[in-house]
């Protein structure tokens, strides 16, 4: 692993010992294999109108045209036209659609990883409906194969492979759960052979927000559900999904699903994590290879369910709050109403941000950006947009439903010496539940 700089002064990381050509070929092969019908249609359709730039926090934050979302796809696009598009044979015959070289890929590493949080705002801005965010995620596959991803993300990848989680070895999981139970005075279930609910976690809960582990347990205990944590397949934040490591994505998905099936759960509860929702709720079936025989829901959806069903009652807080919609949950997941219903049940008056719901700005840290310290300056530019909207909404509280968003926003607040505390929806429910 080495940090380097391209001729134009862009920092990039390199993994592995492949030669330049091998690296380029690995990327190209992965790019080429990735294209299915929808991606191909989208590759054909760009009008070069620049609308996507207006939607991208990294372009708006910096004003640098290279952060225009469609520009981040340049090498991927060239691979498409030269090898997959309907005129690819002509492109190859006449040697047009200039080929991608390793220098280009090095240059694009930062554009694909540092300057994209996979937030998908560009997709909504595109008049042709091109799902740019999805294409960037696919382009990352080739970058991973080429050993051209930010070192911090690659480190998490290797950790996840070795430990089953980028946060902690599987062997330590049971202890973390027990500790969280003791600290918060909540009885915990761990590694029960059979249960209706399996609770999964993301690194945020296993490191900074361990109270969340107890919070959900508290609620499940209250409703008298049969539930368990499991040392096997507890990790829902699928780092392969973010890094472009398809093998890891498949492995993590299968491990989590197979384990839940083995336990006989009818519901798998995903943690307060955005990408976990994208990877498990919408993509898991592809890796599982068919319909999954259990329900996969996000923590927020679960909270909405128990609150709406009246199984728990909540104290009325009676203050104003703004809600930060995690991109993968709201924009790309369709969960917009659920968190608001829960906030209302808590007696909170919602003061919406200027852009909220499906159109909310990203926290700036999604898609691995928060873990990739190299991207900090860019991330703070994005945070400023968010901060401005919070201040505009003028609410007392500031709630979200994603641990990574919460960490990103907290880091941003710290950087700008902003004294707003970012709260978790789960925590609010657990703390205000009438026992």
């Amino acid at each position, binding site marked *: 692993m080495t940090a380097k700089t391209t001729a134009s002064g862009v920092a990039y990381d390199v993994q592995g010992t492949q030669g330049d*050509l091998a690296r380029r070929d690995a990327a190209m092969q992965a790019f080429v294999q990735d294209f299915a019908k929808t991606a191909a249609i989208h590759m054909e359709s760009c009008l070069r109108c620049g609308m996507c730039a207006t939607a991208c926090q990294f372009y708006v934050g910096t004003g640098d045209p290279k952060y225009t979302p469609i520009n981040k796809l340049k090498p991927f696009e060239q691979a498409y036209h030269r090898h997959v598009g*309907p005129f690819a044979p002509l492109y190859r015959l006449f040697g047009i659609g200039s080929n991608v070289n390793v220098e280009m890929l090095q240059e694009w590493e930062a554009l694909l990883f540092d300057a994209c949080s996979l937030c998908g705002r560009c997709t909504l801005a595109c008049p042709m409906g091109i799902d740019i965010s999805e294409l960037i995620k696919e382009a990352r596959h080739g970058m991973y194969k080429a050993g051209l991803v930010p070192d911090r993300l690659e480190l998490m990848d290797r950790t996840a492979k070795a430990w089953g989680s980028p946060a902690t070895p599987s062997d330590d999981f049971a202890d973390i759960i027990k500790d969280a139970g003791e600290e918060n005075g909540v009885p915990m279930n761990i590694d029960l052979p059979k249960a209706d609910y399996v609770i999964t976690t993301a690194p945020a809960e296993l490191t900074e927000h361990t109270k969340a582990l107890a919070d959900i347990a508290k609620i499940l205990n209250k409703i008298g559900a049969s539930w368990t944590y499991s040392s096997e397949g507890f990790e829902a934040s699928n780092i392969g999904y973010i890094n472009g490591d398809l093998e890891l994505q498949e492995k993590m998905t299968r491990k989590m699903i197979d384990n839940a099936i083995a336990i006989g759960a009818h519901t798998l509860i995903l943690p307060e994590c955005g990408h976990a929702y994208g990877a498990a709720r919408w993509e898991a079936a592809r890796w599982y290879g068919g319909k999954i025989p259990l329900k996969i829901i996000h923590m927020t959806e679960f909270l909405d369910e128990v609150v709406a069903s009246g199984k728990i009652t909540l104290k009325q807080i009676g203050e104003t709050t703004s809600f930060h919609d995690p991109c993968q949950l709201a924009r790309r997941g369709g969960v917009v109403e659920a968190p608001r219903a829960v906030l209302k049940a808590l007696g909170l008056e919602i003061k919406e941000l200027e852009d909220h719901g499906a159109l909310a700005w990203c926290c700036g840290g999604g898609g691995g950006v928060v873990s990739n310290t190299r991207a900090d300056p860019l991330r703070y530019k994005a945070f400023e947009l968010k901060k401005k909207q919070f201040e505009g909404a003028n609410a007392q509280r500031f709630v979200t439903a994603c641990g990574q968003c919460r960490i990103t926003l907290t880091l941003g607040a710290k950087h700008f010496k902003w004294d707003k505390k970012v709260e978790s929806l789960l925590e609010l429910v657990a703390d205000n539940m009438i026992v």
Partner: protein
Amino acid sequence: MSNDQTLAAMLRQRGVSRRAFLKYSSYVASLMALPPSSAGALAEGLANARRQSVIWLSFQECTGCTESITRSHSPTLENLMFDFISLDYHHTLMAVSGEAAEKARQQAMEANKGKYIVVVDGSIPTKDGGVYSCIAGISNQQMLEETLRDAFAVVAVGSCAAFGGIPKANPNPTGAVAIKELVGDKPLINISGCPPIPEAMTGVLSYVLSFGKLPELDHLGRPKAFFGETIHDRCYRRPYYERGLFAEGFDDEGARQGYCLYKVGCKGPVTYNACATLKWNGGTSFPIQSGHGCLGCSEPDFWDQGGFYRPLPTPLGAMGPMLAGAAVAGAALGFGASLSARQHQKTFLAPPKSGEE
């Protein structure tokens, strides 16, 4: 009739004063849109001109052009034209025939060497040695070449002579060509039309007679005075075109209202001629006024423009079968491309190696 006298002297003998030249010249000036003040110069030129020897050659034609000029609509005035010229040879009009006729032609050529005007109607067949039209034992091409040798200028009258016309229409079995293909560098005026407007013929001849030179011509060799504007430009139905009011057929309400005939195939917008202003049959009417679209008869290859009733902006060929074939070919290429892409996705760089493709 002697050709040494001036026209003025000749007419004076018949008791006609110079006023006749002035009136005639006013008429020609008006026809050719010359400034009215030029009528004086034109009259003077005509009065001092000698009677012009004209040799009229008819080749692959229908005699419609001759019919047209002999029925010029202003007989009392335009008959003067026949006083100004000496029509020394014309199959249809001359009294003599056979060898006597050919002798008249030879005599006229001898007597007016370098000064006579050759008027041609009809196209020239060139295929198979020109056997498809012969007069007096020689092919039309031979007769034209022989007659042109000492001519002052050539006037190709009618679309057959000017552009090949109907004989040249697909598949052109006789290899007909326009006169301009055979005149070399002789000055040539094309007065196209099927038939041409008689005033255009008399106007042009008067101009040449008076000024001794050719009038201003367009890129097809036609006098701009008569072929400078399209039928559409001067059509009285033009306002309907601008307002989007069209006859859709020949017996619908639009046709009865006198709306624009563009949709039923009128070629007025691309046809240069003076029909809309001079009109026909003594200024009575012209095709569009009588309810039929312009055929475009004064334009090259008017017979092969896809049909008189096919609207101007439509493609000439029948596209249906071609497009069906193209669709099948396109779909096949598409499937092929997609199969090849799938294959390529599998095999591209599959056995690890450093070079690509």
